[in-house]
């Protein structure tokens, strides 16, 4: 915004530096007030945020269930193929639960990046392996 106000003042050229400074100050003040008013929410921005939040909620709920189902499915097929009883089914259900939680943490990170970390809990305290290196997702 600052450079924009610069541009809009310069071409005139016939106002004193004091006037220009005053003009800039008023412009930035107006800008701040506008930001503030928008933040307080004229409804539009808030509604969009709520919609996005609901979108995240819907994603998290199914992501964790689907991972368990997929894990169980893989285990069941491997069991049938290798004739290994319920062993692999059990192992892969557990792995599915882990993958589901992994999905949720991943979605949470996207959420935290979008809404800021003001979401009630701080996953940054939990050290997961990929935090140290590149996140593979």
């Amino acid at each position, binding site marked *: 915004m600052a450079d924009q106000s610069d541009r809009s003042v310069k071409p005139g050229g016939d106002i004193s530096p004091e006037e220009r400074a005053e003009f800039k100050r008023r412009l930035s003040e107006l800008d701040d007030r506008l930001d503030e008013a928008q933040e307080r929410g004229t409804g539009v921005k808030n509604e969009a945020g709520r*919609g996005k939040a*609901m*979108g995240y909620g*819907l*994603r998290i709920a*199914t*992501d964790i*269930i*689907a*991972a368990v*189902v*997929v*894990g169980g499915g*893989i285990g069941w097929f491997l069991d049938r193929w290798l004739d290994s009883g319920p062993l692999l089914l059990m192992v*892969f259900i557990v*792995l*599915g639960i*882990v*993958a*589901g939680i*992994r*999905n949720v943490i991943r979605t949470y990170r*996207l959420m935290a990046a979008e809404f800021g970390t003001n979401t009630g809990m701080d996953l940054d305290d939990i050290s997961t*392996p*990929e935090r*140290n*290196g*590149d*996140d*593979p*997702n």
Partner: protein
Amino acid sequence: MANQNAGDHGAGTSSMPDPMHQFEIQRWLPLEVFGIDASFTNSAAFMVLAAISLSAFLLLSTSGRSLVPGRLQSLAEITYEFVANMVRENVGTAGMKYFPFVFTLFSFVLACNMLGMIPYSFTVTSHIIVTFALAAIVFVGVTIIGFAKHGLGFLKFFVPSGVPAALLPLLVVIEVISYLTRPVSLSVRLFANMMAGHTMLKVFGGFVVMLGAWGGWAPLGFMVAFTGLEVLVAFLQAYVFAILTCIYLNDALHMHH
């Protein structure tokens, strides 16, 4: 379609109409191609209707192409901007190549969901085979894009870095399961939400009939509010479907975050 009316099936006020009847597939034009049942069903009809109404909407609204848009043109422009911003934010400018696909997917799911909100209509997205087909297109397409872009290097996507070698096999399996979860969660989310919502509406519609003129007002009031929620869900589900497609595309194109 009038025979989908719930009243036809609830005999009198004592028995409930079947809330699942609305999801039944009816063969409108029986057709068999090489032993495969390719009948033109009510589901197919509503998919065609969704495609036609979408095309008509976009063609009509953009035919004027005035500098100062009218109502219809604004609506089309808002839809375009909405999806374009979604792709740009989640995939970056490199993803704009895939904008037509994401836009088509979003508007088709949205049109199917919204058409389903019209009484007596059929909700295409309440069938898992439809949503799974859509999700499978996304899943297979994104995987192909990933391999086309990175070659076998795309397999590194499943290998988290900075992990002790002993844990690596376990984590790779978990990453693969997490990746395979995508089409399942994508399709189940859309299908389950649409089916559950429409079943709820029918069940409460049955309550209104059962309780009659004296007690039927309470479930009727609930239905009005719930219909509003269902419209919101119809939009949100299309939005979630599209945004997840964007996120998966971003993963395939850039691999890192």
